């Protein structure tokens, strides 16, 4: 199993539908300061069900919707789709690819779907917990957070190992 495609639209600094296609192995993302690299990491964390705005560096959940720029009006909707390669059947679904999508409008309610059919947040969380991507999402280390990855209390480190178990 690996992340095959990441598609964002209206999410943070990405007004237009933008897609990255990933292979297994090592993918490296570069670009100038403020170009939108960390927003892509936030997109993955958000799509997997993140509920706290501060984890995606905002003060309210509306902060994830493209707020406009000199050249473009604000977006009405933020949408992120993750497509996982499931050829090895790691996810308990009958398809070779599994899509997880989250969408939110200005009214605030988030809309989740798995393989393009509507589901609840708990369905996404349960699906991912089965492959070690629990609520803490230890496999995504945000900018400036590498020291915090280990600097927590001993109980935190135990949680990280329990989630991996």
């Amino acid at each position: 199993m690996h992340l095959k495609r990441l598609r964002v639209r209206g999410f943070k600094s990405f007004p237009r539908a933008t897609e990255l296609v990933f292979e297994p192995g090592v993918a490296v993302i570069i670009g100038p300061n403020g170009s939108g690299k960390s927003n892509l990491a936030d997109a993955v964390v958000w799509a997997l069900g993140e509920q706290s705005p501060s984890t995606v560096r905002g003060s309210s959940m509306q902060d994830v919707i493209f707020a406009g720029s000199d050249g473009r009006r604000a977006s009405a909707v933020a949408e992120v789709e993750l497509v996982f390669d499931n050829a090895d059947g790691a996810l308990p679904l009958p398809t070779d690819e599994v899509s997880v999508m989250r969408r939110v409008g200005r009214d605030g309610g988030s809309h989740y779907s798995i393989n393009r059919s509507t589901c609840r947040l708990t369905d996404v969380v349960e699906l991912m917990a089965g492959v070690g991507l629990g609520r803490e999402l230890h496999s995504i280390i945000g900018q400036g957070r590498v020291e915090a990855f280990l600097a927590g209390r001993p109980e935190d480190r135990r949680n990280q190992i329990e989630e991996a178990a």
Partner: protein
Amino acid sequence: IDAEFAETFAAVQEQFSHMVEVLFPGGRGRLLLQEPASEDEPGGVSVEVKPARKLGKKLQLLSGGERALVAIAFLMALVLSRPCPFYILDEIEAALDDVNIGRLVQLLRDYRERTQFIIITHQKRTMEAADVLYGVTMGPDGGSAVVSARMAEEEIEREERSRTKG
């Protein structure tokens, strides 16, 4: 739950000690399971690291780069014992010197068959680890766009040229 945790902990513990030897040549490190604080609370996990030639220290006294390396050792120990399907690492090598970035790059190369790494960076050295390189730029209309890394590097060079001429 306990038997499962104990097995996982033993695997992570072994890998952590190994990773510390790789990242701190001549050094030693270990994870320890603490006594449970009370009946209903399991014990936490503490970390001890002794860089080469130095006394074993509290994590707090280690340098910025050393603490980042210990965190990377813990991360890699999880990768080697219970890998997740993918990892996203955002400028995790910002505090490292060139030699330690080199060691990290070597680890990414060694374990790229075990899981998928997606690395965000500004360091040229880290780019050497890439199987695939992506560039992100801020477009003329103030919105982000993903371009081929070739174009991103050219934009960085173009900005650089205009800065030095400007």
